[in-house]
């Protein structure tokens, strides 16, 4: 058995690009429902999942923002984005939902601990 350090779920896919985002968030929710403490890291295109103005996509393509809004109910309040991602995408922090914490390069590296379970989506 692993020690129960918090689960790191990495989201790297944007809304409406593939189902990786939804299925990654589902894994985070299930982890939380199983009593694991969960931290989310939105890297690269994954940061777009946090855009506060996003909507549903093509007909039948559900919006993923409601899942982001649900995270807090599951006590997932660690929503991290590398500052580097915001710079690379030219994505202002103000366009994202509340409660997002930008991380420095060192803080991002520190998340990758060998004792922490990690799932990369």
């Amino acid at each position, binding site marked *: *058995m*692993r020690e129960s350090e918090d*689960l790191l779920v990495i989201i790297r896919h944007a809304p409406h690009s593939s*189902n*990786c985002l939804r*299925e990654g968030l*589902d*894994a985070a929710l*299930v*982890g939380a*429902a*199983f009593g*694991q403490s969960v931290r989310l890291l939105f890297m690269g295109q994954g940061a777009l999942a946090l855009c506060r103005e996003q909507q549903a996509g093509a007909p039948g393509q559900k919006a993923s923002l409601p899942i982001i809004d649900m995270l807090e109910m599951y006590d997932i309040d660690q929503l991290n984005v590398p500052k580097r991602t915001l710079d690379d995408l030219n994505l202002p922090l103000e366009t994202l939902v509340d409660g997002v914490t930008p991380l420095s390069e060192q803080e991002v590296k520190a998340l990758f601990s060998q004792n922490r*379970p990690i*799932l*990369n*989506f």
Partner: protein
Amino acid sequence: MDYGLLVMGAPYSHSAPHSALRFAHAVLARGHQLVGVFFYHDGVHNASTLMTPPQDELNLRDAWQVLHEQHDVALDVCIAAALRRGVVSQSEAARHGYDTFNLEAPFELTGLGQLLTLQQRCDRLITFAS
């Protein structure tokens, strides 16, 4: 050591399932226990009994089944990801009123919680995805 694998690529679309299968055999050859393989995202297509590759190509579903039969490896398929993509067991087919199904033992439809259990239970969880 106890190993688990997470497979998230579809067969014949991506190399992830082939890479995972090769790794699985290497894990066993080194004397480890392969506890289970969890199929998620597009990886759920590995379970389809209807996959029909040409005769000179490996049938990946059959290859996973052999792994189960010879080494008792659990083959768990995320139920939500599978149903969405049309990978359905007999009982789910009955529930939804379909007259056909394409997932059967030794593959098992299971909740996503099984992935987290596998991760906690195993010394190593290795992901193969595309």
